[in-house]
């Protein structure tokens, strides 16, 4: 029962952002009642292992949970799982839930995340076509990854590539179809793309670039057994994984008339245009102080930073979100760590040895370090994080000179 004397803060969504917010609020001893409503059946959990060690069967389900569920209970936080919020009524500050009940809120936090982008081509609803977003998706995919089977992955982004690495290790025959001219094109430069291409190819993955999928073929049971490409080519398949990005989950916010622009628009304090509603994580497009523009990010770092910012805002502390984005990915023995956004660079500097699988690419714009991608080179990542944060200008000669210690640059 909700205590009538207290205000009620409702969090919609139960992902990484929501879970981090719950923890931040309990650590700050937030005085109000907190209720989280999530359509998933699990307490908040981390998704990165879903394409990494959980897919490989190296960790169990419980280890995915951000916290043991009892923690929330002990702190008096209420988790309503398996319940969807259908509508936000801003007039009387209430929510309509999928179990037909109504929930009043004083403050509302949208943490609705994102959903996978679907590929709408001929045959896209055949059996055997997978997407990866939640625990159940990984469970379903893992069951089918049997040695000798042919897995075709549509999309050469980091999730597709992580699955390719994991499935190959398990003896599955993997083909990756990427429509662009290089892997992970959206987030990294050509050096990393080419390095990963070589890595996957030498592990036995058939990587095809410039390969646009226009349809799926079916056997007489209605199961997918092949993929058709725009150039007329065909690839046989027993299993297909489509991994072509995500779309922010903004329907609730849009229907409630909140300002949205490919993401719920929030400021650096995670506030929407309604003073009683905050939004955090993948579902937002935030005013990024660091880049001084509106930015949408899909990463754990963004979800947790915004969650902590929201906790501060709810506690009436002014603590803006102002840190450069960062990200990681594991494929085979490759540990990739990335910081900043490299899109607008005008110069790239290589440090270390690609051959030895230990190197970093520094991305410069007008002489400033704006991003770093590090392969098995944590020091370069950590130094890069500082350089990007401080908007340092460092010359290419210095960055590439192995006789100058990276640590001396900060």
């Amino acid at each position, binding site marked *: 029962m909700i205590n009538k004397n207290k205000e009620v803060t409702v969090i919609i969504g139960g992902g990484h952002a929501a879970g981090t917010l719950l923890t931040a609020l309990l650590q700050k001893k937030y005085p109000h009642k907190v209720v989280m409503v999530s359509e998933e059946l699990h307490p908040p959990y981390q998704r990165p292992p879903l394409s990494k060690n959980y897919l490989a069967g190296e960790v169990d389900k419980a280890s995915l949970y951000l916290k043991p569920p009892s923690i929330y209970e002990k702190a008096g936080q209420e988790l309503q799982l398996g319940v969807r919020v259908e509508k936000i009524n801003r007039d009387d500050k209430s929510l309509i839930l999928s179990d037909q009940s109504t929930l009043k809120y004083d403050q509302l936090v949208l943490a609705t995340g994102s959903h996978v982008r679907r590929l709408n081509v001929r045959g896209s609803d055949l059996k055997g076509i997978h997407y990866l977003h939640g625990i159940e998706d990984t469970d379903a995919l893992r069951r089918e990854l049997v040695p000798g089977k042919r897995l075709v992955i549509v999309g050469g982004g980091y999730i597709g590539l992580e699955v390719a690495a994991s499935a190959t290790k398990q003896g599955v025959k993997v083909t990756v179809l990427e429509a662009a001219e290089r892997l992970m094109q959206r987030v990294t430069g050509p050096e990393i793309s080419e390095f990963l291409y070589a890595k996957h190819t030498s592990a036995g993955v058939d990587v095809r670039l410039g390969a646009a999928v226009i349809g799926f073929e079916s056997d007489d049971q209605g199961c997918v057994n092949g993929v058709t490409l725009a150039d007329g080519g065909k690839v046989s398949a027993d299993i297909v994984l489509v991994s072509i990005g995500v779309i922010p989950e903004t329907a609730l916010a849009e229907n409630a008339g909140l300002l949205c622009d490919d993401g719920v628009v929030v400021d650096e304090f995670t506030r929407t245009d309604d003073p009683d509603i905050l939004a955090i994580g993948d579902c937002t497009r935030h005013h990024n102080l660091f880049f001084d523009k509106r930015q949408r990010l899909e990463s*754990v770092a963004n979800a947790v930073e915004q969650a902590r910012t929201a906790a501060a805002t709810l506690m009436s502390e002014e603590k803006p979100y102002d840190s450069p984005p960062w990200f990681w990915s594991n494929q085979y023995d490759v540990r990739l760590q990335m910081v900043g956004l490299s899109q607008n660079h005008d110069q790239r500097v290589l440090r270390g040895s690609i051959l030895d699988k230990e190197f970093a690419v520094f991305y410069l714009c007008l002489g400033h370090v704006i991003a770093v991608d590090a392969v098995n080179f*944590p020091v370069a990542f950590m130094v890069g994080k500082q350089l990007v944060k401080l908007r340092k200008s460092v010359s290419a000669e210095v960055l590439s000179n192995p006789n100058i210690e990276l640590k001396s640059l900060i």
Partner: protein
Amino acid sequence: MGKIIFIEHDSTEHVTQFDEGATLMQIAVDNAVPGIDGDCGGECACGTCHMIVSDEWFEKTGKVGDAEEQMLSMTPERARTSRLGCQVQTTKAMDGMTVQLPEFQM
């Protein structure tokens, strides 16, 4: 089952129960110990699980790995007995261990 004691920078103590096999980061996170975020979930990728093991227990925590060493070398609060909590798997021998938390994480 055993006990690990986490001591925050401001001396607040958190006495936690653990099952051997869990990492120090996981134990701290499961008990909502402030100051240990573990943002990357234990992938040795974020550096938000830095801890300083008390001298007499350090040996028992095993070897510092190469990636871990590189990450640790970048923290200003690095001490001789620093570890990334996610890289330390607990054993029975760690029952009663005390671990100091730094003022800031990386």
